[in-house]
């Protein structure tokens, strides 16, 4: 491994330690005041809010500098997230659709329909379990069976549905009249027509961007930039919304500053 991590850690040890020490003593004092004033009650909810605030601030400490606190919160979170995914999968699929469904079938009087329903549970379970052969290198190849079925079927499903939803459904409203005797030129339809065609030409790689093709591609890139500008504006909006929610948490739920 490289020396980068060690150098950042070494420089962050001296002066920054002090900054963080002061920072966290302030948090402790604030919590004490909040508890003392009765805004937060000692209990599951009160402790929870204090924990939440501590984790929030730990993660924001990255803004000051990449630091161990940030990494600690981040790593703990990764562990919790993985466990949560597994708990959800267990309770919502494995327990109900596999274990309970199979249990109910064993209680029912045996018939060929029941038999096939059992197969419909056992077979996918076995195919799914093959993935775990990855743990033993000698049998790891067996996991490829599962992957090839999942990915192969998914790819097969994708093709007709992509053609339908992205090509046919999208082509239909593109083929509208650009001029009508009643309304004259349909300017918006013309803009859409030029935009679609010129962007497609820009992403066309079999012709050199010269002459008419080059000019169309140039128009295409202007359209692309307008669209990227729109995405840019919306991305900014989204990020600020997230910050607004966090500020609301810190200064409403934790410190009662906002009404």
């Amino acid at each position, binding site marked *: 491994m490289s020396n980068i991590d060690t150098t950042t850690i070494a420089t962050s040890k001296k002066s920054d330690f002090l900054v963080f020490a002061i920072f966290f003593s302030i948090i402790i004092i604030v919590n004490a005041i909040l508890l003392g004033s009765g805004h937060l009650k000692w209990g599951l909810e009160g402790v929870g809010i204090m924990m939440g605030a501590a984790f929030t601030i730990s993660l924001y400490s990255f*803004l*000051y500098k990449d630091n161990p606190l940030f990494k600690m919160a981040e790593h703990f979170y990764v562990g919790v*997230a993985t466990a*949560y*995914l597994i708990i*959800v*999968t267990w*309770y*919502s*699929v494995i*327990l*109900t*659709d596999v274990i*309970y*469904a199979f249990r109910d079938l064993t209680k029912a009087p045996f018939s060929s329909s029941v038999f096939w329903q059992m197969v419909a549970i056992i077979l996918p379970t076995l195919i799914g379990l093959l993935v775990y052969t990855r743990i033993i290198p000698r049998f790891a190849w067996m996991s490829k069976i599962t992957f090839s079925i999942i990915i192969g*079927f*998914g790819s097969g*499903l*994708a093709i007709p*549905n*992509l053609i*339908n*939803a*992205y090509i046919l*459904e*999208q082509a*239909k*409203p593109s083929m509208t009249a650009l001029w009508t005797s009643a309304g004259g030129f349909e300017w918006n339809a013309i803009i859409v027509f030029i935009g679609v065609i010129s962007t497609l030409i820009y992403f066309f790689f079999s012709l050199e961007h010269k002459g008419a093709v080059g000019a169309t591609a140039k128009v295409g890139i202007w359209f692309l930039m307008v*669209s990227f500008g*729109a*995405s840019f504006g*919306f*991305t*900014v*909006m*989204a990020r*600020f*919304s*997230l*910050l*607004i*929610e*966090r*500020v*609301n948490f810190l*200064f409403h739920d934790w410190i009662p*500053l*906002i009404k």
Partner: protein
Amino acid sequence: MGMQMKFDLKKLFNLDRRIIYLLIFLSILIPFLVEFDLPIKANKDVKNIFNKIEDVAKNKGHQGSILLSFDFDNASKAELEPMARSLLAHAFKNNLRVIAMGHWPNGVELAKSILNDLAREFKKEYGEDWVYLGYRPGVSILIINMGKDFKSAFQTDAFGKNTKELAATKNIKTINDIDYVISLSAGSGGIEDWVVYGRSKYHFELGGACTAVMAADFYPFLQSGQLNGLIGGLAGAAQYETLLGRPAEAVSGMRPQSIAHIVLIFFILFGNFCYLIDRFYLSKRS
């Protein structure tokens, strides 16, 4: 003069990032503390969703049901939770049945708490007025399965109850028996999959609610009718709250949102203004 100017600009732009961070933090916090009114006007895409729910309520009453797919988690709850709350309040107010589910495993607990909150507020009964089906993996495969046989996709709800026995899901054989589907989406495994594997295949009415990051991408679906409406970002949520006459987090969030946007626009304009002056002097010198 040019040299001097250039030097100053360098200094100005090497302004410590942390000072900018502080400025932006204040531009969010201060508008929270100072109250002022903003005119919030719903655009057509938001209105379409609102009107569709009203229509279902008018035509079907309590037999009408909408499906809310919670395809997000905590990372974007700031934007999507207000939408989920407004949509639920709207459906419950009109006595529609709500069926909730989700493609994102990390959103299960969040969805439960939002649903419980609103059901308590509107005094709705679980099973009769609303159900929560929980998470199933597969996304596209799950949607296709719901279109073929709803009860095979969801044999039980999130609490282990049989969907054949719950009043709200008893009569639903395929997804086409649901009057309106809305995906609250924060990324892949959301609106796009609902459009490609659901709406375009089974032709049910689909509405979208999404984070602002994705909103610009969905306009082709709106024009082609693959989505009948779209609520985009916190601004969209605020518009829905206004339509519903139930202002909450999103409406109050519009003050800091507006101010922060203006500060950011100022940053971009100021930076580019100085950049142009800088370039002008550079070209003059050479």
